[in-house]
């Protein structure tokens, strides 16, 4: 009974059914072109990504580095908004089956209306939300019930500075996965992990959390991806993919190639 309940959500199903080396890919809705969002999702699924994270652009993305900032700006210039995104995702489930997570800052969601937003997410077949500036206390008090009612998993972030006590608290209050931020940093692709980062990965792994972990921020290539996968169920790639999107002239070819190279399959 309980297993069935859990498996209704595609995130839970993924972690139950698939093994390791999961790849979650982030991109910004409405970038590079206003109508690219669904097409990119389809291509990612075809190319072998495991989770799709769609960013909802915001004017002031304080947790993001230059690459994602620029994609947010471009998307806003292209006229992207929550209303437009959700209406574009309405028939999503006829086209893709991967878990889909929307990621963004809290203000546009607040203005849209939390209940309306969550209900339309559910209708579209969205599985989870990442709202980095929604504090845990606020979430538990005012949002959790709404998210739960609409079958949406709230994904929390942890960082190298997050205390063990708080990590346990986060682990107790979510049942999707935990987003492990690889270093004290804004988003952005970097080269390789330091020993300090690997120690942090090891420290968290040894906590034996109930929730699966995905490592994100600073994953840019096969080597960082596979290193992350030694410590977690998978990795999240964002800025490196955004860069590809801003450069490519053939999305289908280049997204396939990109995913293949990251996953290291030949």
């Amino acid at each position, binding site marked *: 009974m309980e297993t069935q309940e859990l498996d209704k959500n595609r995130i839970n199903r993924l972690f139950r059914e698939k093994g390791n080396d999961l790849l979650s890919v982030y991109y910004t809705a409405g970038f590079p072109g206003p109508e690219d969002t669904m097409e990119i999702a389809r291509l990612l699924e075809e190319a072998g990504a495991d989770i799709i994270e769609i960013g909802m652009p915001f004017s002031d993305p304080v947790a993001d580095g230059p690459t994602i900032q620029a994609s947010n700006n471009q998307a806003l210039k292209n006229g992207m908004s929550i209303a437009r995104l959700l209406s574009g995702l309405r028939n999503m489930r006829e086209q893709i089956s991967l878990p889909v997570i929307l990621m963004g*800052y809290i*203000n546009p969601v607040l203005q849209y209306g939390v209940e309306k937003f969550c209900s339309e997410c559910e209708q579209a077949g969205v599985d989870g939300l990442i709202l980095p*500036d929604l504090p845990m206390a606020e979430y538990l008090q005012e949002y959790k019930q709404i998210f739960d009612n609409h079958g949406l998993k709230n994904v929390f972030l942890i960082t190298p500075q997050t205390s063990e006590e708080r990590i346990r608290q986060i682990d107790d209050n979510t049942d999707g996965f935990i987003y492990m931020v690889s270093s004290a*940093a*804004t988003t952005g692709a970097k080269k390789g992990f330091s020993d300090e980062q690997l120690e942090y990965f090891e420290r968290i792994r040894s906590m034996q959390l109930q929730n699966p972990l995905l490592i994100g921020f600073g994953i840019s290539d096969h080597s960082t991806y596979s290193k992350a996968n030694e410590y977690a169920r998978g990795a999240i790639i964002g800025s490196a993919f955004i860069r590809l999107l801003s450069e490519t002239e053939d999305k289908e070819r280049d997204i396939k190639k990109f995913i293949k190279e990251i996953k290291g399959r030949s």
Partner: protein
Amino acid sequence: MSYLVDEKGYYGAFGGAYIPEMLYPNVEELRQNYLSIMESEEFQEEFRQLLRDYVGRPTPLFEAQRLSEKYGARIFLKREDLCHTGAHKVNNTVGQILMAQRLGKKKIIAETGAGQHGVATATVCALMGMECIVYMGEIDMERQRPNVERMKILGAQVVPATSGSKTLKDATNEAMRHWINNPSDTHYIIGSVVGPHPYPDMVARFQAVISEEIRWQLEKQTGSQAPDYVVACVGGGSNAAGAYYHYLEDPEVKLIAVEAGGLGVDSGKSAATTRLGRSGVLHGSKTLLMQTEDGQVTEPYSISAGLDYPGIGPMHAHLFTSGRGEFLDVTDEDAMKAGIELSRLEGIIPAIESAHAFAVLDRLSLERDDVVVINLSGRGDKDLETYIKWGKY
């Protein structure tokens, strides 16, 4: 009703700490420690001594005779313009650098709009021998050039913020990003009563020295600690918070907050947040915010860099919605005229931010024996170029 922060970090419906997890440990460390540090005798002693011997406090409360005559009331100026570095901002930076030291931090970052907070931060960093990086919007760097040079002379590194409107909001974004990337040894000295809890409360407490002094100074000069009006300009709201602080619970004292109307509230070029904004989340707190229907923060505009911000501190959002404070807005033009008028009547060239506060005097329907305290938050040296460009004197 209380107008101070509650134990959850809210002022009524406003406040809180809407920050990404990357900032949580730093903000939480501050939240857990700020009150006990601030209230310790040792801290108070050093803070008070620096305010006296370094900042030059108490600042005078000056009865402006000619201005009083013109507007038909007893008008007193709280001379924050006479603080070291030229504005009230230094009250907060002295407090926060002492706080940073006690939290074991080695480096300081700050955002600045007019450059007054940047200068005040660079100043205390020089005093304490701490490394200082100040983020400043590219546009503000142009219109407040003397302050950029002052910061550099003081040894600070000034980093231009080139995103968005290239003003205070964007400088704040960049400072927050810097903090995310440098979490362990750095303290972020926020320059107004904005940001995640406990910043608005901490900054208000440091600035509260303004109204603490007004009370006894006014009593000496008028026999009463309480004026009829306290008037202050509001960018983020720190000078206003300081001037109101000890009068919040005294409903007899009318609190007048003056926002920057820019080219006019309906012109699309304005920073009058209470007129144009609604509840939203920016820079870590829920507050009144200028934004599109979709929740994208809109670019504010004001001739004065220090008021050119799309939000106000959560305390002021609460003062506004509860009706405790009366919020007025003043156009660029009226502010400039008021600045020239103060210069001519009292021999004081105010900062253009502060000039906004003077421009509402003729709207207050004052009586002869009304006592009005205007917080003269800063001096106009930094604004000479703007005065010159405006030219009508």
